[in-house]
């Protein structure tokens, strides 16, 4: 039986108090839904001395309309999926959230938690005894990367579903400390390092996700995994396109998930699509550019070679769906759920 290690537990009155505790305590972490942190603590992958609870803070659970949409980081994935406004205006985000884990985990897990999801790897997401038997890895307690023993950085995979979708939609995030706050584009929250995968400092709390006005932009999210539920992505493609008056692409943003330690922006494919109509040839060309941007390694389910080949297919499906093709049968085959 795996018990949680000992820790101090704080229940702050508000975000400011949470930020004060976070800044004043050594090795403190925030806990919201707990669906990522608690398994990691049981396996001793993450061993905070202090947990600062956010679950009960109502100020993190609001969804507000402005010129765009502001979503509190504490909104559960279930609440997000049940929001009809999000389903219609930010379809890609909705499809991503609807495919996270299982209904039970979506009832607990929050959007903020999914954005900050710890990177994952076959050599890291194991219990303490397993990891000890291979003399650990550089992400926790060890010195070497077992995925690629010559690698100087940790290659653990970014496995968040919502982040690629949010990045494709041009989302920003607000980070708050006891002394102030800053707002940055979501893609700047990440870096391609499996250990230090977030640019967020330990004292900062992710409080809000800000989406630009969704009118005129179509978005989709395609996820590849072995099973139809539970699994993290082994590959995902998020795409958002604003079409111009003539039906040609005005602006496109394609983002890959689970092929690096951060969501990967396919700038070459996005730029290629500008001012072009989504013909079959254009889609194939853009999909090939996406595959070139992906460098999957052997750290998750399925072989890297196959995952790289699958990038082009999944990207093509995403673009076909954005063009207006009926992709329900393909969706059903791949996602095993109607989206």
């Amino acid at each position, binding site marked *: 039986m795996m018990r949680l290690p000992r820790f101090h537990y704080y229940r702050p009155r508000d975000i400011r108090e949470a930020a*004060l505790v976070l800044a*004043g305590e050594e090795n403190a972490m925030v806990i919201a839904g707990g669906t990522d942190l*608690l398994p990691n603590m049981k*396996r001793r992958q993450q061993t905070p001395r202090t947990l600062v609870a956010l679950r009960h803070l109502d100020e993190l659970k609001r969804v507000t309309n402005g010129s765009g949409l502001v979503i509190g980081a504490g909104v559960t994935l279930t609440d997000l999926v049940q929001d009809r406004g999000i389903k219609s205006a930010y379809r890609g985000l909705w499809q991503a959230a609807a495919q996270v884990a*299982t209904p*039970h985990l979506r009832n607990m897990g929050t959007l903020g938690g999914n954005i900050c999801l710890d990177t994952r790897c076959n050599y890291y997401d194991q219990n303490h005894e397993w990891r000890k038997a291979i003399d650990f890895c550089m992400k926790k307690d060890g010195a070497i990367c077992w995925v690629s023993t010559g690698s100087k950085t940790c290659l653990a995979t970014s496995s968040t579903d919502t982040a690629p979708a949010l990045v494709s939609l041009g989302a920003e995030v607000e980070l708050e400390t006891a002394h102030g706050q800053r707002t940055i584009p979501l893609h700047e929250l990440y870096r391609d390092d499996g250990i230090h995968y977030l640019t967020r400092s330990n004292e900062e709390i992710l409080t809000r996700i800000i989406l630009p006005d969704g009118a005129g932009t179509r978005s989709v999210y395609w996820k590849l995994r072995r099973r139809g539920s*539970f699994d993290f992505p082994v590959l995902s493609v998020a795409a958002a396109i604003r079409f111009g008056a003539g039906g040609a692409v005005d602006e496109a943003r394609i983002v890959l998930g689970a092929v690096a330690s951060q969501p990967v922006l396919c700038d070459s494919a996005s730029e290629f699509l500008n001012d072009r109509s989504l013909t079959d040839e254009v889609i194939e060309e853009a999909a090939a550019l996406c595959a070139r941007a992906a460098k999957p390694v052997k750290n998750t389910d399925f072989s890297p070679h196959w995952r790289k080949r699958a990038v082009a297919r999944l990207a093509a499906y995403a673009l076909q769906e954005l063009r207006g093709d009926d992709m329900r049968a393909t969706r059903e085959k791949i996602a095993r759920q109607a989206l």
Partner: protein
Amino acid sequence: MNKVTTLKRSQQQNAHIGCQVNREPVQVSVAPGKTLLEMLREDLQLTGTKHGCELGECGACAVLVDGEPILSCLYLALEAEGCSIDTVEGMALDGRLHPLQEAFADLGGAQCGYCTPAILLTCKALLDKQPDPDRDQIREALSGNLCRCTGYQQIFESVEEAILRLDHSEQGTDLKSVPGSGG
């Protein structure tokens, strides 16, 4: 730092929490590192809630917190303060099984039975919200519950039978007279 020290609310020591379990108020003294699953099984002796993977990968420990199915292995007991918790022990009312339990018993919805309490509660939460779900909606609601006996077909059929019986009982029909009941 002094300011932070004064903000300390809860330490490593046990804390007393109050919540409702199966409609009855309970007071429990729990350590911060205790999960709701451990509290239910070890402090309240409610062992109907099963202990599976402990990592959120199987669904065997699902209970209802304020009517929503959650995984008790990933829920801190401390955070259940003030909540209403339903476990399988509370499903029968006045000595009578819940129609879901009856249908599972009659149609072979349980094989080894280890995943059954969590599945019953997950279905109860579904039916409380939506009395007449179709097969796809049942599948989706149960997509977080693994059955290692792989008896999913009988599970879906049992849920659909329970929906029929609930429907009949609402119309005043005696449950025992419904065809297919009684095994």
